């Protein structure tokens, strides 16, 4: 991540590099310029020195020296006389001596030659190595052409002999009345011979045209790397003509080396300054980036704090606000200004009291003092504000004396909590107390009875025909009915009484009986009266009744569960006595009821506890004398022993438990029959209640589908009463099942109306002749025999099988066979057997039948 921090740092580094480069460049330019300037100054200075030395000192003095020497030689009497005499030979002979005197008399003058001339310019004699050729210096013409006063004058001339300058002084001989002239030719360089010493540097002379090196003074040679400052001037003769060029050079390395030092020091200094600046800038940048990072973190922290649902506030040891989020003042309706850092807790609490959100009580000052007491340990307090909000305030002390408070608006949580508590104790549909709350109230009430001798009644209500309303008008209408019932019940009780819904159509009333139990009866009557009035449910006038069972405390017990159970027993009795009544629990009366009640409870549990079992009794085809099917018969294996169907089936039918039990029987029979040989059918008894229940056809189909048993192997045995009760609906169901392939047999034929009309109405597959006829076959009057014969004949003519039930002897078997019954069943062949023995039974019976045959 290229952060602003990195960017800043790179910017600083880049700026530093650029500044360094620029500064270095500037330094180099400045110092180079300075160096050049110094060099130029050196050169100029040298020029000046050279000029001054040559012009002012050496040159003129030398000319005078030569002039003095010429005067001395001209005053020599011998020379003077010989010139006057005009004797060249004698003069030439005398000249060496004069030369010698001249050469030694002045060490300052380098005498190169002497020429003696007559006054008219003719040369009389000459001496020395230099003698001017007319081309270089026409001495005769110069002398001869002078006239008047000029002839008296001394003439100084510089000329070039083979490029070399020669200084010649022509001096008159004979004073102001000259007889001739003497000319001295000298080397002018002599005049400058000390120049090197005077200037302290090498001086070299060149001809004017620079072609010839005339002389070099001084023996200094510059070092190889020496820095030289040079100067050159043209030296002019007395007649202002250029004579030669003098040049000097000196080593300025030492001075220049100081330049290097200056540059080095400047550079070092500059680097130092820039480094310092860079360090300072970097430090500043780092500080800035840290500052930025700090501010970012701070901002994030602030955002996080301000987006909390809680109010947060931190105080220091002096109870002043250090920091708080926006939520904090907003919770108490304070302006942010009132909680800015530095504000004291006292002020804030004062504002809160002033704004009216706190119940400050009668003495606000005391309240205030209490609220601003120092915090020494963490605590959580819950405050209810005047507007109903509930605030949980948690304080946690911090090291150093301050503390942090968290203010949490728990109004909603409280509301939900109370709602949950309410829901746990109330019925969702009617909002009446539920069984739990009723038990609690009962517990409280009974706890009080011991001391206050207060009596209580527990009414247990059960709506009559509620199931019918549910089934015919649907559950929504059923629910609406329950609500209306709850309303009516609420109207007829005292405030101290509790109406509860226990579930389904069961209600209960806990009634206090300050005076006598008569009040309980009065309430029960009132309730019966009220609930017997029709209810208007969305335009449906519905009338339900109720039955009430009442138990009394403390005489019937002080345990809530026990009381409820006794009320339930009384209710049970009320319902069995006749609906629309109430019964008060009576121990003796309810004993029998209790047994029945217990049996019902046990039967409900039997299905769950897997206590039911099917036994099978074989049906024998009398034509082939072989097993053609089994009738499934229900057994209840109770812990205290097996119970026969007759002892519990009526109760099951009465309570409606027959429906789930019947379903189980159907599924179980189908599943077990599937394991038998494929020609063997299974016959299952169907009770009227089961048959009339919704979805019976579906139940049969499911049982067949789940087991995989073909419909043709299932035989449903129905009683005649079923067909009689609701002929149309029953016949429709029978028809549907018959169309599926299920066989239908008419059970216990002959015991009821035995209406032949019914036989016509539906094509039963089989008629089962009740066992009572078979038992009576041996009776002398022969009625039974006639009936059996008639039914068998009837069956044969209608195309139905006939089965004789309860065959117990060989004689009975022979008789029913003789009368034309097609099948039989009974103890003679086999009693009902558990499912696990059926396989064995089929095998042995096949053998036995074979033997019989």
């Amino acid at each position, binding site marked *: 991540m290229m952060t602003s921090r990195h960017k800043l740092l790179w910017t600083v580094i880049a700026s530093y590099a650029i500044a360094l480069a620029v500064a270095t460049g500037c330094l180099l330019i400045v110092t180079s310029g300075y160096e050049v300037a110094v060099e130029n100054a050196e050169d100029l200075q040298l020029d000046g020195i050279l000029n001054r030395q040559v012009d002012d000192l050496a040159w003129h003095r030398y000319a005078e020296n030569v002039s*003095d020497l010429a*005067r*001395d030689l*001209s*005053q020599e009497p011998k020379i003077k006389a010989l010139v006057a005499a005009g004797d060249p030979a004698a003069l030439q002979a005398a000249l060496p001596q004069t030369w010698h005197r001249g050469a030694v008399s002045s060490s300052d003058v380098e005498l190169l030659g002497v020429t003696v001339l007559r006054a008219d310019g003719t040369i009389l004699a000459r001496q020395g190595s230099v003698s001017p050729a007319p081309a270089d210096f026409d001495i005769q013409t110069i002398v001869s052409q002078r006239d008047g*006063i000029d002839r*008296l*004058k*001394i*003439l*100084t001339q510089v000329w070039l002999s083979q490029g070399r300058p020669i200084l010649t002084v022509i*001096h*008159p001989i004979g*004073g*102001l*009345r000259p007889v001739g002239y003497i000319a001295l030719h000298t080397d002018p360089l002599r005049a400058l011979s000390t120049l090197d010493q005077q200037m302290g540097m090498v001086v070299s002379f060149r001809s004017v045209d620079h072609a010839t090196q005339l002389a070099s003074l001084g023996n200094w040679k510059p070092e190889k790397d020496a820095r030289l400052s040079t100067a050159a001037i043209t030296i002019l003769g007395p007649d202002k003509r250029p004579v030669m060029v003098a040049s000097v050079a000196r080593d300025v390395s030492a001075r220049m080396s100081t330049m290097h030092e200056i540059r080095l020091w400047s550079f070092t200094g500059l680097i130092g300054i820039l480094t310092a600046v860079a360090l300072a800038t970097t430090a500043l940048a780092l500080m800035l980036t840290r500052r930025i990072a700090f501010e970012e973190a701070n901002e994030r922290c602030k955002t996080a704090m301000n987006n909390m649902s809680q109010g947060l506030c931190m105080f220091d040891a002096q109870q002043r606000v250090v920091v708080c989020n926006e939520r904090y003042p907003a919770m108490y309706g304070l302006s942010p200004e009132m909680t800015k850092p530095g504000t004291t807790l006292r002020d804030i609490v004062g504002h809160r009291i002033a704004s009216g959100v706190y119940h400050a009580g009668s003495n606000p000052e005391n309240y205030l003092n209490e609220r601003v007491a120092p915090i020494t340990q963490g605590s959580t307090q819950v405050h209810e504000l005047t507007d109903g909000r509930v605030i949980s305030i948690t304080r946690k002390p911090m090291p150093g004396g301050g503390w942090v408070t968290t203010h949490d608006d728990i109004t909603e949580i409280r509301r939900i909590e109370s709602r949950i508590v309410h829901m746990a104790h109330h019925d969702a549909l009617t909002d009446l107390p539920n069984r739990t709350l009723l038990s609690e109230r009962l517990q409280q009430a009974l706890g009080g009875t011991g001391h206050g001798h207060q009596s209580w009644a527990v009414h247990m209500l059960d709506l009559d025909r509620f199931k019918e309303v549910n089934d015919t008008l649907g559950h929504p209408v059923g629910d609406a009915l329950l609500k209306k019932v709850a309303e009516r019940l609420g109207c007829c009780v005292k405030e101290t009484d509790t109406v509860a819904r226990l579930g389904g159509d069961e209600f209960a009333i806990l009634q206090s009986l300050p005076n006598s139990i008569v009040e309980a009866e009065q309430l029960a009557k009132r309730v019966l009266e009220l609930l017997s009035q029709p209810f208007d449910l969305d335009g449906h006038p519905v009338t339900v009744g109720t039955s009430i069972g009442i138990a009394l405390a403390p005489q019937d017990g002080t345990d809530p569960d026990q009381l409820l159970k006794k009320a339930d027993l009384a209710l049970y009795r009320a319902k069995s006595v006749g609906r629309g009544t109430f019964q008060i629990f009576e121990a003796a009366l309810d004993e029998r009821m209790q047994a029945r009640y217990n049996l019902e409870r046990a039967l409900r549990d039997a299905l769950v506890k897997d206590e039911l079992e099917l036994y099978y009794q074989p049906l024998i085809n009398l034509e082939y004398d072989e097993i053609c099917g089994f009738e499934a018969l229900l057994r209840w294996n109770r812990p205290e022993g097996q119970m026969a169907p007759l002892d519990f089936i009526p109760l099951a039918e009465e309570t409606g438990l027959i429906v789930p039990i019947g379903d189980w029987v159907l599924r179980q029979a189908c599943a077990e029959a599937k394991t038998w040989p494929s020609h063997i059918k299974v016959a299952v008894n169907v009770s009227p209640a089961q048959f009339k229940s919704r979805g019976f056809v579906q139940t049969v189909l499911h049982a067949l589908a789940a087991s995989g048993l073909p419909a043709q192997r299932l035989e449903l045995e129905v009683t005649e009463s079923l067909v009689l009760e609701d002929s149309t609906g029953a016949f429709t169901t029978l028809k549907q099942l018959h169309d599926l392939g299920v066989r239908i047999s008419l059970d216990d034929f002959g015991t009821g109306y035995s209406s032949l009309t019914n036989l016509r109405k539906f094509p039963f597959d089989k008629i089962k002749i009740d066992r009572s006829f078979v038992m009576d076959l041996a009776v002398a009057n022969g009625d039974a025999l006639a009936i059996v014969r008639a039914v068998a004949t009837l069956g044969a003519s209608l195309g139905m099988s006939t089965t004789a039930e309860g065959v117990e002897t060989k004689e009975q078997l022979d008789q029913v066979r003789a009368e034309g019954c097609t099948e039989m069943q009974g103890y003679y062949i086999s009693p009902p057997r558990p499912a696990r023995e059926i396989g064995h039974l089929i095998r042995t019976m096949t053998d036995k039948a074979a033997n019989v045959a």
Partner: protein
Amino acid sequence: MAKARLGFGALRLAMAGVALSFGLSQVLAQDASMQIKGAKTVDSKGVIELISTTPDLAIIDNRTKADFDSGHIEGAVNIVDSDMTAESVLAGVVQSKAAPVLFYCNGVKCGRAAKATAKAVGWGYSHVYYYALGIPDWKANQFPLVTP
């Protein structure tokens, strides 16, 4: 403003002082006059003409002996001006007060010739010549000198 005026006043005073001192030094270090009353001032050319046309010309070199010995005008006699204490000194060299006589020294800056000339005139010499510019002028004109 008063201060500025005072400043100007002081400046003016100082300038006056400088001018005064300059003038004084001029007076003190004043060169000898080019003209001496009763004498005729000549240049180098005039000297040569006198020498060549006046055989009885007395040439008096008023410089020191050392100067005289290092080179003087041909025919000159060395009499330092300070030695001219009496007429007799000059009379020993010049034949008469009517005889021509020439004085020279190292020029107006030297001043010895001026004094000598003035004395000669004072003593009654009638043909007094004064070579005011003296030896420097002589040398500059490249005229020859002689040594004893």
